């Protein structure tokens, strides 16, 4: 399901973000900037896995997906819109039926994680043991199981 860019809507992120966000995020190095037109484009659509990373991130909602020609009949679309801590999806069927769904995607503000917060393990003293960082609290049971104990 290769992505394509609507040239009317794409503004190459207008010089912000040190370049277009689709080019920044694409996990497969597919999205590129055409220097002549100053628009984003998919440079290798046959290796696009429809992961939607670029579609979800595009501030202009300029990126869409035209389903794989191998097996997707024309006319349908699936388009996300980022809402607070989630996404709203519009699913348009080939026959014109439209469904809309909103799902949460994270429960905390972006950037709020605190690695090792309240971890009580001693990085030197507990290094030889089998416990992982934070497990004395986060494992959920008092003692790390071991086979010696069970057999």
């Amino acid at each position, binding site marked *: *399901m290769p992505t394509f860019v609507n040239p009317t809507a794409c503004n190459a992120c207008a010089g912000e973000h040190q370049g277009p966000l689709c080019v920044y995020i694409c996990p497969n190095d597919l999205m590129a900037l055409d220097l002549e037109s100053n628009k984003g484009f998919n440079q290798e659509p046959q290796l696009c896995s429809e992961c939607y990373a670029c579609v979800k991130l595009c501030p202009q909602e300029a990126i869409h997906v035209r389903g*794989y020609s191998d097996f997707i009949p024309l006319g349908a679309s699936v388009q996300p819109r980022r809402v607070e801590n989630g996404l709203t999806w519009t699913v348009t069927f080939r026959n014109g039926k439209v469904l809309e769904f909103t*799902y949460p995607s*994270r429960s905390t503000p972006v950037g709020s994680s605190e690695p090792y917060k309240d971890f009580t393990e001693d990085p030197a003293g507990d290094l030889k043991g089998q416990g992982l960082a934070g497990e004395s609290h986060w494992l959920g049971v008092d003692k790390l199981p071991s086979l010696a104990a069970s057999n």
Partner: protein
Amino acid sequence: MALPVTETVECDILIIGGGMSGCGAAFESKFWGSDLKVVIAEKAVIERSGATGEGLSAINCYMGQRYGWNTPEDFVQYVVNDMMGLAREDLVYDVGRHVDSSVHLLEEWGLPIWKKEDGTYERIGRWQIPIHGESIKPVTAEPARKAVGQENIYERVSVTHLLTDANDPERIAGAVGFGVRENKLYLFKAKAVIITTGGASNVFRPRSVNEGIGRTWYSVFATGSAYGLMIPVGTEMTQMEHRFVPTRFKDGYGPVGMWFQYFHARVTNALGEDYTVTRDDELDKYPPYGRAVPTPTPLRNHQMFLDIRDGKGPMYMRTEEAMQKLAGGDPAKMDQVRQEAWEDFLDMTIAQALTWASQNIEPEVTPSEVNLAEPYIMGSHSGEAGAWVSGPEDLAPPEYFWGYNKMTTIRGLFAAGDGVGAAPHKFSSGSFTEGRLAAKAAVNFLRDNPAAPSVSDAQVRQLHESIWAPLETFDRHQGASTTEGINPNYITAAQALVRLQKIMDEYAGGTSAWYTTNGPTLERGIRLIEMLREDLKQLGARNRHELLRCWEVVHRTWVGEAHMRHLLHRQETRWPGYYYRADYPDLDDANWRVFVNSRYDAANDQWSLMTRPYINLVK
């Protein structure tokens, strides 16, 4: 050869790959070694890289020890049965006993997990919990990025080769690669290296071959580099003959676990028959695994395979039947089930939602086709290919222990996730956990072995020249033909990939061969892949994007060759439904309940294959 500038990065721990395992390794290593310089090298951006970058709708590896749901012993018994008797029990147990802490941390960092009214986790199956997981990867990457520091994350860097010590080929010394976006070569000098890169999609010819080659079931970004990096330096590998053939919604490859386990849907053939009923007797042919509960995944595949082979398809997931039953005529309940059904795809396999919409499939009305996909070689999901690693000190018998948990047979080289063999069913949470385990062990290794390995400048120069060669080859020869893609002096990465996929499909039991092969067919396939490996020295690339594809196909070809050599060595059919050795059609526990291992000797360009014992630890 004129080479671009080399950036040299010296560090204590180099983590190659920033997926779930890599993020786990990064997070854990800086807790135990806050004084250490830990570096991540990643070909994309860790917020969306790796197999979970698109999102997930479930955590498939969770014990629920705090609820009394399962023990690690339960997990070992389940996994060994699902793998038809072959998994490293020490490694599986190790993931099982730790994985809950990883899941609880992911929730703390912001992963929304479905809850029951009493606040406990909702369940899909015995080990699976549903999540609103569209952002599982950014949620996981954030603390990893904070832990190692922005300046230590090298993104858009493709690592192509590992480096061993100039005086000791069995000691790791670092890695080399190139900048995908910057005109640069890289040299990473490291005292310990953790391989967390991916298993392999697109080694076998996929069922969709045009644009759909990107719609692989396992991530198209997973190029087998976990194996393509480790095999050439002589790392001992295990179970490379193993593969996973997913039964999935046809073409879009949407997940089926929720449908089977949460919605309790059946799959029926064109005659309305359920193969788990009509093919029940087939399970008696594979004792003792056939009668284990649940039925091992390959045998479920095998039952469906027989229906399709006998011309009883198409096979339909009876979504309409399951949804009507769940709703029981209540429109509000139907609305809830519909929301859940679509979220399953929109969280992780958006192509399947588009497949449904494009074919006007409303799951509450219309059943949906399922099929057996092309094979995948991996170590994290239901696959068990990977490196032969040391187990943990308190679990591993002497045959499985050489000092540091998750260390390969190359000293200082650790693996996690797809890179660790014989340790399947880790999925996202288990891979993250295994990364953490490898990282803690790597810190221990560094405390005991603080000296820096020596790196040979000549070796680095030679590898850098080989990395850059496809660009040079294209430049030198492009004038020899008026058609850029047809030139006797080079092949492109895309052409090489098609050749690899054709060899694997036809000789190693891909879909067009009905997953069937035999000894002579494999021997012929190995001769052809040896020639392909020679031809890969003549890859041509027009730019660094194509150079990335060149090194991906090199890694995938190592996977394909190892897979065929292992298939040839194992003289039985252990996983019917994944592949069939026509010359050894039966499962042979008396002779082959052993791991098949291999080592490649670069100096002599020779492979050696051997077996290692399966040792039962959980009684």
